[in-house]
């Protein structure tokens, strides 16, 4: 039987996804080294075509598109990862408590979760940003507030199925306390679907962040891919690269995360992958 890592890393789709995502992360980490200038600085004539002195050209104000792309990667990834971590932490807590204790606790928590789930998530995020005012921190808050319900549902369903397994009853008979059973026996066995859902959530977070920035609700004074598309959209017919380059970056990054997420799923559930 192949190990998890063999199944995961030998999957060609995962390799493609990992290569792209790793380069984006590398670029984001090294942003200040690769393009030390402020991405908002004006460095040349506006609408310089790509392929000139500046590789990816300039935008309507003469700002370097490459610098925007590199620094935008940092903003976009950071916000996406932080908001996903917050959503996973909160969603797991709610889902685990609801699933494990059941009864009234479950009813209250799940009705609340459904309340959040029934509000169209993007509109909700816009409203939250409008109330909280746009900033990087508030973007993280808004994105995590709209993305935790699916995590809760996944964790609750897993906890429900795991808690009826015999090893949990064995822990009860051994005299282990409830919270200890939840943390040491139940939660570790819900990890696989949680990892898969969580990884796919990063992709959704990137899309929400980009869409908010596109609308001008992103973090001010921080370059992001969505902001670049928003700023370039009125010049689409004259300067195609302003929208296309960050757009393709978003597309490829979201795609690579999805490939990795599916690869994780296949590697964690090898029986399903064979079908």
């Amino acid at each position, binding site marked *: 039987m192949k190990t998890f890592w063999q199944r995961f890393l030998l999957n060609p789709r995962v390799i493609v996804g990992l290569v792209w995502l790793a380069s984006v992360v590398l670029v984001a980490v090294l942003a200040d080294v690769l393009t030390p200038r402020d991405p908002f600085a004006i460095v040349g004539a506006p609408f310089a075509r790509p392929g000139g002195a500046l590789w990816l050209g300039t935008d309507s104000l003469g700002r370097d598109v490459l610098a925007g792309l590199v620094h935008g990667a940092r903003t976009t990834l950071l916000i996406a990862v932080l908001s996903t971590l917050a959503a996973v932490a909160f969603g797991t807590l709610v889902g685990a408590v609801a699933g494990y204790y059941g009864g009234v606790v479950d009813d209250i928590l799940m009705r609340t979760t459904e309340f959040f789930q029934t509000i169209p998530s993007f509109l909700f995020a816009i409203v939250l940003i409008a109330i909280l005012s746009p900033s990087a921190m508030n973007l993280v808050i808004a994105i995590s507030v709209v993305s935790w319900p699916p995590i809760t549902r996944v964790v609750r369903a897993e906890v429900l199925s795991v808690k009826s397994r015999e*090893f949990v009853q064995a*822990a*009860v008979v051994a*005299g282990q*306390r409830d919270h200890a059973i939840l943390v*040491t026996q139940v939660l*570790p066995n819900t990890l696989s679907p949680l990892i898969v859902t969580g990884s796919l959530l990063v992709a959704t977070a990137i899309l929400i962040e980009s869409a908010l920035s596109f609308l001008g609700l992103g973090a001010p004074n921080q370059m992001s891919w969505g902001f670049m598309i928003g700023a370039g959209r009125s010049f689409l017919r004259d300067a195609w690269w302003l929208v296309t380059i960050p757009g393709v970056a978003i597309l490829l990054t979201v795609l690579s995360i999805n490939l990795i997420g599916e690869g994780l799923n296949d590697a964690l559930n090898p029986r399903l992958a064979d079908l």
Partner: protein
Amino acid sequence: MSDPVLTIDGLTVSLPPWSDRKHAVSNLSLAIGKQEIVCVVGESGSGKSIMGKAILGLLPKPHVRATGGRIMLEGRDLLQLPDEDMRRLRGGRIAMIFQEPMTALNPLMKVGRQVEEVLEFHTDLKPSARRARVLQLMADVHLPDAERMVNSYPHQLSGGQRQRIVIAMALALEPALIIADEPTTALDVTTQAQILHLIRELQRAHGTSVLFITHDFGVVAEIADRVAVMRHGEVVEAGTADAVLRSPQADYTKALIAAVPGLRPRVKDAGTQMPLLVVRDLEKTYVSSGSFGRASRSVKAVDKVSLQLGRQASLALVGESGSGKSTLARCIIGLETPNAGEVLLDGERITGLSREQLRPHRRQMQMVFQDPFASLNPRHRVRDIVALPLRAQGRLDRAEMAKRVAEMLERVGLSAEQGGRLPSELSGGQRQRVAIARALVLRPRIVVCDEPTSALDVSVQAQILNLLAELRRELQLTYLFISHNLAVVEHVATEVAVMYLGRIVEQARTAELFRAPRHPYTKALLASVLTPEPGLGVPDVGLGDAMPDPANVPPGCRFHPRCPVAVAQCGSAAPAPSPRPSGTVECHLAA
């Protein structure tokens, strides 16, 4: 054997490269004569089921495929046959009876229709003729009230009835060969005996050959003409059933036959009579709330049960599935809350205590669960699993805890190296040893064993039962042992309580109960035990097929609808417990 129906010649089935071995079946040869029942016996992983699938062309391609040999049926090599011909052959010349009748039937289709479908695909019979044939088949497999039966859905039938339907489907086209893959393993003991009876009878009447795959030498003795014992994909011994059972040659066969529990009481030392555990008038009712116009259902799983467990005694609770034996045990150990009645542990009342209040009492009473594949946390190492009760009770420091765990592992026959492994790296028997170590590490006085061997291979079952018996003697333990199999019970129990629909209908010392059963249900259970002695024939237990719906307990004596000796009085008045030399029995006729 002049003219075999099926000849397997040098069959080799390869496994995918990442498996732990290369071949599921290697160089296997076997022949099945006309009107012969050949049993292929082996434990899980022996390749017996893969062989059955290879004959039917149902191997999970492309990873698992036949790489050598021939399977000849009526002059044709099945391995070379195109898919279309193979499909016509399946159900036509070869039919299959599966282990689990519920999954073999389509849950959304009436069973009569499912039998008819077989005829529709393979024959040109007119609809009226088809229907007549379906009714004929229903009568052949002894399903009562065939007209009503054909209009039932699978979930409305009992396990035994469903298996009869599957057998009717297999017989529909008068196949030359029926492959039966553990067809009675999922059934209760009394039903198993009846189904074996039926297969034998139909095989004689229709002149069919049967390839019977099983792990149980008890089944072999009842039904086989010839036997092939398989291990690691190879036949280790083959011959007539008589010869193999009477004088097995291979050590492996000897071990398998010795592992089948017979009916000779072995445990003699009865416990001293100061009761350690007292159960009084315990009741547990499950209520499922009605919805969408359905009435709510209440099932009395345990109905006013009282029992006593003396120090160092070993009481076995025996009954078919649905008898309430597991629920009773779970109420006693505190995994379920009873609706009424009380449990006293060493004179102290433990019913009605909260989980937190119950925690100190857990040191007195521990449990070994049924399925070691489910009862061990797959993400914890063996050492940590065994240490869990010590940690949860929190009275030892780290070093002492490690010492206790190491001692316990050694005591149940596991090495220190195995202590560092994950459950998935252990075999079923080793896992159950881990579960036993976990239950005993607190040095409890009472251990509840919930069918601890039913998920294990036969040869391992005996080892685990022996280990439990040894540990009981050495550590002066008291056992509450749950089982559906009387033959297992007599290895470990000093006393037996037989449960039926939530009541204990008979209770007595083991030897006495086995020698002189008084309740007709106990007699039927004893008659259902299959022993590896050839020539006894399939026992006829004389019970009706299914246990009644537990939500709707029959009036009077609850056993009377299935009772072969019931009289008028049984339908009206419930019998009171009457004493017998070492226990009680609830039957009008036995009183």
